[in-house]
């Protein structure tokens, strides 16, 4: 009678070798994602540092953003970015949260199964398309009908960015409301509360971390949005510092595209190529901070329930 030992149960050498190769290949692909992050950070920091080393630091705080004239006023494009992001959130926050609350607490099964895909389709519309829509519909029919703003304005671009961000806010906020356990709702109804009271006083407070996460993610998306601003906010070449949303303005992203597609090559004028990367680094850090904060809030929801 032969006795089996652990050796007999071992996988055949060929299978084991193949196993090791496959494992290594998969690990390599996962490692590649880290390499990509490293490459992003290195290329941004490297070029930004070389820009700061060469530029006259006074040019970073002047009257406006005119890179081809050597004026790199950071506050102009940061202010433009924040104004457009604020307008976008004025649109996206109420629309997104109300839509999420409706889908999560009020809509029946059938309504949900129709509305959710439609929202996903809205989310799939490319941002160039919304930029064109902003310039040819929102601006003349909304902004110019109500005010005497020019065709290109930060307001019309901001509203379009808000439309772009709404499906994102609504879907993250709805996930958070969906995660609120049913016993909280049942307890509320059991005490005789109405659906309105249950939604507003029980579900929303319980999901507040997730709603904040949704809003932070929305702001991050709005700050990074490029094409709408490049098409509809005006100020392609440069812009003076300005805070009026009914005027054309320059954002960080639009400033970058304007530099990259300018009639002369990106590498043409003295420091314009490097200046791209300082703006890019700033944008990267802002969105990263918002995304990390948003993720911390989402984790809080998960820990609670």
């Amino acid at each position, binding site marked *: 009678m032969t006795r089996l030992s652990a050796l007999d149960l071992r996988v055949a050498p060929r299978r084991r070798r*193949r*196993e090791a190769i496959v*494992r290594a*290949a998969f690990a390599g*692909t*996962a*490692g*590649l*994602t*880290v390499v*990509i992050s490293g490459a*992003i950070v290195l*290329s*941004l920091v490297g*070029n930004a540092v070389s820009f700061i080393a060469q530029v006259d630091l006074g040019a970073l705080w002047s009257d406006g953003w005119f890179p081809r004239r050597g004026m790199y006023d950071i506050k102009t494009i940061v202010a433009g970015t924040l104004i457009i992001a604020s307008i976008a959130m004025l649109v996206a926050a*109420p*629309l997104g949260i*109300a*839509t999420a*609350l*409706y889908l999560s607490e*009020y809509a029946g099964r059938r309504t949900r199964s129709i509305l959710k895909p*439609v*929202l*996903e*389709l*809205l989310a*799939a*519309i*490319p*941002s*160039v*398309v919304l*930029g*064109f*829509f902003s310039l*040819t*519909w929102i601006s003349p029919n909304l902004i110019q009908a109500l005010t005497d703003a020019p065709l290109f304005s930060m307001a019309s671009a901001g509203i379009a960015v808000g439309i772009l961000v*709404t499906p994102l806010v609504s879907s993250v906020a709805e996930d958070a409301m969906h995660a609120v356990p049913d016993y909280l709702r049942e307890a509320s109804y059991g005490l005789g509360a*109405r659906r*309105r009271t249950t939604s*507003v006083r029980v579900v929303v407070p319980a999901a507040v971390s997730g709603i904040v996460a949704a809003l932070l993610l929305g702001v991050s998306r709005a*700050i*990074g949005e*490029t*094409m709408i601003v*490049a*098409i509809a906010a005006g100020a*392609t070449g440069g812009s003076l510092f300005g805070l009026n949303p009914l005027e054309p303005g320059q954002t960080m*992203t639009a400033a970058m*595209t304007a530099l*990259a597609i300018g009639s002369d090559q*990106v590498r043409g004028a003295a420091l314009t190529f490097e200046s*791209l990367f300082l703006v*890019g680094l700033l944008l*990267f850090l802002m*969105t*990263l901070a918002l*995304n990390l904060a948003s*993720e911390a809030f989402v984790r809080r929801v998960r820990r609670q329930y």
Partner: protein
Amino acid sequence: MSAASSPSTADLVALRLRSGGFDWQSYVLHGAMLLAMLLALGILLVLLADVAVKALPVLTQRPLDFLTSDLSSRPARAGIAQGLVGSLLLVLFVAFLALPIGVGAAVYLEEYARDTPITRFVRTNIRNLAGVPAIVYGLLGLAVFVTLLGLGEILVVGGLTLAILVLPIVVITTSEALRAVPASIREAALGVGATRWETVRNHVVPYAAPGILTGTILSLARAFGETAPLLMVGAVAGTFSVHGGLIEQLTGPYTALPTIVFNWAGQPQDEFRSLTAATIVVLVAVILLVNGTAILLRNRYDRRW
């Protein structure tokens, strides 16, 4: 004597229960939510209708000519053939690069990796990569592929940049699909002596396939509509040759549908409005078709374990 049994409280409760007065606040809340919902959907409809109406002149007078003509500064002869070919090549490039790498990384993280600090770092890193603004990927492509490797502004570089852009999305959606496959499937396969790789290939991936497929289809649609990174790495409309050989096309200057939209949206002549709108109709039709199919597929194969 406790408060609950005092006559005044009992009377109050009775009054409240019997009154059932008109709760206007509930109606206001419900109305506001419906309004938000309608606005979100209305915007989608207005956008589609507006673009379709603006596109009518081109789409009715010369639909085929528009699809098969080259770009031109003369509106009456301009077409989008180069954009169609360019976008198709770009998406194919993304499919062949991002999908295998992305699925591989997801399989490693979900099926192979143990829960170590390094794995957690890789996961967090991928989530953050997904939140990096698209234009920053354009900067990466510009710094690494165009300048550092000296490839120049060619189609391959655009494809590489887009592939890196959608990679984290592919990893995240594939991870979700793999996580939805119950552990019992894996345990059954491992229990009869299958290796990790055999388990993954023959059991886990087939069950997760519908989820992986919809996720990847959606990420390809995303790549199809992405504009900003392509502008950074030089998808300038005009010189892309559709008539040369494949190698020539891959290593030469190129253009894509969304960058044509951007270019034409900036043209002052009214004829270009209609051309831009017609290009958007083609772009959005493809994207809505692809997304619609993906959503249907997902709902159809949505499996509850």
